[in-house]
């Protein structure tokens, strides 16, 4: 394993130090381990807090700023943050109007965030939780851990963040986040495994002519291993998976073609071309799109497609100004 690190045990803290140095507009608490907007929260604004394991950058710290998150708490690599840390971030984001937790649906994240929410509650702090579970590669069932939270997290954070910025109350911000999640479906394909600093070797062996289909964002193997194939066939595969799980109608779509970290932007654009062609010939209408590495899995080569069936209001909130390290427009 070759990585720009000093000691695997210090990666998160040292990356946070780098974020602090690069972004004076953010407040990085290296002790409590969270990233927040600099300055006190605007009185009366609902706070938006997210978090999860590191290794998905720019998610989440890269989405802290006006129009999106108030605070993010990064855990160790691929490990959810701990309750104390989430509580500290929640306090930093609270301006008296309550705080929304955006939580990706993983056992660890759900438990740590809910313990933090209990702690916040005993502090008299109102917390609403938006659970993101958009990954349709995983079968949904009340008997299992359910679907994973992946690419839609970005959409939830952007849209709930825009509403919070406008001054909407706690319930409305949470409801918007839940609506985005419900309307979204994601599916990912990996061409290579990724390597965590601690493990120091790839999470799985993948022959040179095979791909992992239906992977998540934690380096885990996917639902199946298939033969490598041309981009247009992979595009058909992911579009099909998304469409089968959540049929696409005439709604305006927000489409995210996301890189898992090791895939060049050139290929992501090529995939977006294929996907938009396929969606177009199926009669779907892409109203907004985003192409790039946003919800990553360290150095994994691969891509995910997220489709959100939006409406005019969701598009308006998507278009609203945002000013964060990794997502910025209109401001």
């Amino acid at each position, binding site marked *: 394993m070759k990585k720009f690190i000093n000691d695997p*045990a210090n990666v998160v803290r040292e990356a946070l130090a780098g974020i602090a140095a690069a972004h004076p507009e953010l407040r990085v608490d290296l002790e409590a381990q969270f990233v927040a907007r600099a300055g006190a929260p605007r009185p009366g604004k609902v706070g938006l807090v997210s978090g999860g394991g590191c290794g998905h950058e720019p998610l989440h710290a890269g989405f802290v700023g006006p129009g999106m998150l108030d605070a993010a708490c990064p855990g160790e690599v691929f490990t959810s943050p701990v309750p104390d840390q989430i509580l500290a971030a929640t306090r930093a984001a609270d301006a008296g109007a309550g705080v929304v937790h955006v939580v990706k649906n993983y056992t660890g994240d759900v438990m*740590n965030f809910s313990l933090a929410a209990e702690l916040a509650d005993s502090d008299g702090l109102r917390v609403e939780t938006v659970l993101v579970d958009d990954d349709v590669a995983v079968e949904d069932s009340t008997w299992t851990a359910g679907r994973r939270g992946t690419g839609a997290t970005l959409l939830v954070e952007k849209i709930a963040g825009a509403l919070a910025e406008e001054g909407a109350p706690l319930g409305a911000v949470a409801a918007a986040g839940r609506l985005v999640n419900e309307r979204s479906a994601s599916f990912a394909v990996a061409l290579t495994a990724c390597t965590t600093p601690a493990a120091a070797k790839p999470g799985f062996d993948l022959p040179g002519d095979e791909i992992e289909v239906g992977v*998540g964002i934690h*380096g885990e193997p996917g639902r199946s291993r298939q033969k490598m194939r041309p981009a247009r066939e992979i595009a058909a595969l992911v579009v099909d998976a998304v469409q089968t799980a959540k049929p696409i109608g005439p709604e305006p779509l927000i489409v995210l073609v996301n890189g898992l970290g090791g895939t060049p932007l050139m290929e992501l654009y090529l995939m977006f071309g294929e996907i938009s062609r396929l969606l177009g010939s199926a009669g779907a209408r892409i109203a907004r799109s985003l192409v790039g590495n946003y919800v990553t899995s360290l150095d994994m080569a691969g891509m995910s497609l997220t489709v959100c069936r939006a409406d005019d209001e969701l598009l308006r909130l998507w278009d609203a100004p945002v000013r964060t390290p990794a997502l910025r427009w209109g401001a």
Partner: protein
Amino acid sequence: MDEALARAWITAVAEAVRAEADRLTDLDAAIGDGDHGVNLRRGFDAAVAALDSLEPATAGDVLGKTGTTLLSKVGGASGPLYGTVFRALGKTLRQGGSFADGLRAALDGVQHLGKAVVGDKTMIDALSPAVAAYAAAAGAGEAAAARAAADAAAEGVRATVPLRARKGRASYLGERSIGHPDPGATSTALILDILAEVTSGDVTARGSAR
């Protein structure tokens, strides 16, 4: 269980986890995200450090402190789950309950939090039979009960191999989770095996081996 035994247990677990971290991580890489060993090592190292600065205290305090430390240092699924295990043990002992009662409370706590049942391919598959075995053998003394619990847990680990996971990250793999032991069940069996060792008197050997 007295304070010395509780300390010896946690210290020996930290050591064992350090020694087995790579194996636990590899098991987790196969059907999860490859961090279970790293997570537990971080947690138990922190627990040992926290105990170093703990004033003379009861066994319940030692185990409770271990639980809160795991909770605040591990993260992921295993942080809250093992945090709950040791907090439940600590609380039960502090309230005058037996170790068997503590184990029962730990199991309840983990199931309340994680909603898993036996057969879901999680640490429950090791913990649940271990709790029953401990209770059944409690009359034979601490050491015998711990050994019975450890053996039941080990058996529980083996039983996870053919299962298809329904909880935790391994559930995302569907059919592909079959054929691998569950990492959390494996670490539960390890922790109980260490308990059997320390209660049987190997404690000083282990303690001084540090």
